[in-house]
């Protein structure tokens, strides 16, 4: 295992595995709520946050986190007013933040190369501080998910009935979307802005093909997620996502074949 002699690879792998565990836990609720694109939107908001961080010389993960949390709450509030369609709210934030990132980028040409690593992700850029930050965010996300698990499940399955049973569904939706922005921000250094939603969505939709109960669906999503992340090599997010897509295709075709033969 020669590669483990290099600290940065070890750091990258540890960070990747933490992300691989946490992200499907959020993804399952987003996919089932037909809200997959929120991850992509928040990733672009994070990119604007990263650009701001680099511009002002702050830790880019922290600024990415701050901007995506603020944007996530704003998106949810906007959606709740019913004055604007849910996906239009997403489009608004996606294009707006990308525009902001591009403008900041052109203002300061000096850090283009650095920003590039946030677009596509790279394990090389993961420092030891980043690993700690990712670990803390991951623990917070997992603990909050654990506490609100039953409320999240009921709200996702049947929002009206959940509300009638006394669950404050607006608050639960805000919690989910803030957790999403946490997960997106913590995953960005590894997989990058462009492929984050793949990480959140593909393991979950693969697991859904297997038609299991909720708990087993999560376990399978975890398995697919971690298996793909293990393929993290010196090359980056592209490999992970391609492996995920390949697994999805295999499972999808296998289930289709099985349903034809049975």
């Amino acid at each position: 295992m020669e590669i483990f002699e290099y600290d940065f690879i070890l750091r990258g792998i540890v960070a990747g595995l933490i992300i691989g565990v946490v992200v499907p836990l959020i993804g399952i609720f987003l996919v089932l709520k037909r809200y997959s694109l929120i991850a992509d939107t928040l990733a672009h908001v994070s990119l604007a946050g990263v650009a701001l961080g680099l511009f002002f010389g702050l830790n880019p993960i922290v600024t990415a986190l701050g901007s995506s949390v603020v944007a996530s709450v704003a998106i949810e509030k906007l959606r709740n007013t019913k004055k604007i369609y849910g996906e239009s709210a997403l489009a608004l934030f996606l294009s707006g933040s990308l525009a902001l990132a591009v403008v900041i980028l052109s203002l300061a040409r000096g850090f283009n190369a650095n920003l590039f690593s946030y677009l596509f992700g790279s394990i090389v850029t993961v420092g030891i501080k980043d690993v700690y930050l990712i670990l803390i965010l991951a623990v917070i996300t997992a603990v909050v998910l654990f506490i609100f698990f039953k409320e999240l499940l009921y709200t996702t399955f049947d929002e009206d009935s959940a509300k009638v049973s006394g669950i404050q569904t607006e608050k639960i939706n805000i919690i989910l979307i803030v957790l999403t922005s946490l997960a997106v921000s913590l995953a960005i250094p590894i997989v990058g802005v462009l492929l984050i939603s793949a990480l959140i969505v593909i393991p979950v939709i693969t697991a859904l093909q297997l038609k299991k109960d909720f708990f087993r669906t999560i376990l399978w999503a975890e398995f697919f997620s971690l298996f793909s992340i293990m393929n993290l090599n010196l090359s980056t997010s592209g490999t992970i996502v391609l492996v995920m897509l390949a697994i999805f295709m295999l499972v999808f075709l296998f289930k289709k074949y099985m349903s034809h033969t049975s």
Partner: protein
Amino acid sequence: MHKSIINSTGVDHTKNIIEIENVSFGYDNQEDVLTNINLQIHKGDYIGFVGPNGSGKTTLIKIIIGLLKFKEGSIKIFGKDLDNFKEWHRLGYVSQRINEFDKNFPVTVAEVVLMGRYSNRKFGQRITEEDKILTREALEKVGMWDYQERLIGDLSGGQMQRVFIARALVSDPEIIFLDEPTTGIDERSQKEFYELLQKLNKEMGITLIIVSHDIEKLTQEVMHIVCINRSLTCHTTPEEFIRESQSTNMFGQDVKIITHHKHN
């Protein structure tokens, strides 16, 4: 109008459990959907809400259970103002779910019914062994225990609706609201479904409020009919309702009421 009757289940039918006074509802800057609704619902009642499409009958249910906020008036549930009402486990709700329902949602029948226990548990509190026992009992009452490990999306419409009844039952409610519960369900399952509702009302003393466009079926099943057409236009017995509706055309041209008398 209501005589003091205490029937075999010991339910006091004179006790008001829902009091609606002068309630109006409308969306922003639009004409009111419901105006000046006054209605009392008594313990043990089995009430059918009828009215043409767009008459506001579903809206009224959604207002009572707090899904929509009304503009004027007051609603009391179990003597408490709706705004301060916290004992949500005393209410059950079965929506038109099966029509818009995600058939691929990865939950089993038992998991769905267990959700009904969440209102008896506080934030962050875990599900207990007692919840699981009650889930089993609720599924047995609706005859669906054998299906507990099946995925909800694999069931037929009638079976699904029984599971949603079990989910409403598992929190031990005193009232269950049903919004068009038999839409998209075949005739035989509908018959079994209404038999189940009679059992809940007669044997378990649960108050039932049901919205349905199937007026013919409702008049055979319920104790009272409430007609809604933007305001409350009648509150009467099924027999009286049939007499009235044959002489006056209550709901305009579209609605014909054909009556079959109960066979029993």
